[in-house]
């Protein structure tokens, strides 16, 4: 995948908001002094009257968005995942989730690919936190095309949505005429029969890379992109698990509570299948380049390849 175009999904987030601004007059965007980093500055420039900078006060921003939503606005609150989901958890639960208000949470800088800022800003717990909230939709786009489609889908969906974006540029893999985004519908990127790799976000391109390497070893892997962690595409996961009998999950998130757990919750009940969860193994991250960290923690193509191969050969 040497010459593939790379774009950070946070860029896609900002661009999508700006592109949707004219079409959706009730769309408003809130920031907590990070508009430059969350890339919502693009929206701010185009629609200054509908961009609200709340200063460094994420909890208040969340409540303001709740109040705006009760008055018919469609607010997107933007911050790093660490604050949007972490610091804010109880505000999201009680002020947005409980009244099921139409607020979208645009969480950028998720996972370890935050990079050099280190562990304090690398949120590997947000999917777990958000998917426990009743009625919350949780979406983790894999690339630019998917991120933009997810933003517009979230605008058209009435209810709270958590959208997870990354800081680092990731390969554009969905730039095809037939690509279609639907909340809750996973995408089979490669069919296979020996093992199912279910990936989300940053790990989707790594999973495709791993599948190529596995093919060279004679292992035919199916690759599924689960962009919506909640509601999970149960039918797709169950059908693939039934076909291959072995499931690997890959995510830039803790192995506790994220995609891997969501898949295990489903399979343990409906279709007991052995699962190998690839993610952050109950550890904090550290400073480093995004690529260096993905490599160290085994979340890049090579890391996923090695783990899947060992799992298949067990």
């Amino acid at each position, binding site marked *: 995948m040497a010459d593939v175009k790379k774009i950070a999904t946070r860029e896609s987030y900002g661009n999508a908001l700006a592109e949707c601004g004219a079409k959706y007059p009730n769309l408003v965007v809130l920031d907590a002094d990070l508009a430059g980093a969350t890339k919502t500055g693009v929206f701010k420039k185009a629609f200054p009257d509908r961009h609200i900078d709340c200063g460094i*006060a994420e*909890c*208040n*921003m969340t409540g303001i968005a709740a*109040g705006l939503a009760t008055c018919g606005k469609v607010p997107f609150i933007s911050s790093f995942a660490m604050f949007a989901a972490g610091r804010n958890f109880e505000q999201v639960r009680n002020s947005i989730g409980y009244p099921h208000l139409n607020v979208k949470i645009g969480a950028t800088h998720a996972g370890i690919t935050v990079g050099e800022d280190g562990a304090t800003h690398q949120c590997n717990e947000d999917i777990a936190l958000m998917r426990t909230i009743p009625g919350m939709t949780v979406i983790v786009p894999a690339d630019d095309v998917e991120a933009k489609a997810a933003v517009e889908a979230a605008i058209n969906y009435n209810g709270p949505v958590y959208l997870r974006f990354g800081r680092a540029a990731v390969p554009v893999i969905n730039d095809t005429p037939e690509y279609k985004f639907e909340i809750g519908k996973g995408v089979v990127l490669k069919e296979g029969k020996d093992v199912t790799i279910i990936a989300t976000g940053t790990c989707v391109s790594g999973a495709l890379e791993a599948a190529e390497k596995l093919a060279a070893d004679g292992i035919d892997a199916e690759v599924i992109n689960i962009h919506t962690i909640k509601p999970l595409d149960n039918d797709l996961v169950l059908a693939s698990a039934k076909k291959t009998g072995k499931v690997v999950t890959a995510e830039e998130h803790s192995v506790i509570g994220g995609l891997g757990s969501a898949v295990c919750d489903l399979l343990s009940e409906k279709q007991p299948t052995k699962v190998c969860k690839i993610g952050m193994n109950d550890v904090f991250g550290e400073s480093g380049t995004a690529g260096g960290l993905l490599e160290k923690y085994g979340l890049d193509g090579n890391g996923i390849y090695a783990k899947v191969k060992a799992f298949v050969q067990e």
Partner: protein
Amino acid sequence: MNKLELAKMANEVRKGIVTAVHSAKAGHPGGSLSAADMFTYLYFEEMNIDPKNPKMENRDRFVLSKGHTAPGLYSALANRGYFPVEDLKTLRKLGSYLQGHPCMQETPGVDMSSGSLGQGLSAAVGMALAAKMDNKDYRVYCLCGDGEIQEGQIWEASMFAGHRKLDNLVVIVDNNGLQIDGKVEDVCSPYPIDKKFEAFNFHTININGNDMDEIAAAMKEARETKGMPTAIIMKTVKGKGVSFMENNAGWHGKAPSDEEYAIAMADLEKIGEELGGAN
């Protein structure tokens, strides 16, 4: 309503509070009773609302940031005609639309779910901001506790409201002086309350919150205040109207027994008679 009619209605609201909490065998009578006059003034005099059309687009909004005093809000709503007064007895019961803390999806007239302290004011600020963005003239009222303002989010919201000059927002602090663990000044003093809001660019008004004339004057002053939000700091008596509950932190979150309920209702009946009977 004139002052006497409002006072009589506030007494009815208090009866509803005591009855609801007694029936629930749980709840928060102290801070509901202290703010009963304010609940009454807001819903019977101040706010542009329609009980038959609770979601009227241009209505004034109310957020009960100190959501544990839901019995006070529910009693005002019931007496105003949003739902039957008799239903107050279902408070906190399984299947009731009167949840322990306000739930906007369940209860007609509740504009925002609340109860986790510190969060309601931010939502009220969002509503006031929405009115400004849409050039609408509705106003937003938010009732906070004097213990609640120990929460940092209150000051995040206040900084924003002052910065944005939200003169359609009125924050009311029920300064009954008591929180669960004792006197607010002993637990972690919020004083001086008015100076804090002034520092966040609010217009501030100090009143006796158990006096309808002072409430009316403060609301008029708030309406006339342009270019900044208003904070009304109202001194009140926690448990106001019920002899054994007044100024007693123990009645923050406790229901009266059958005997205590009889005494409480007798206290309120007496107040009602002194006011000259029902409206």
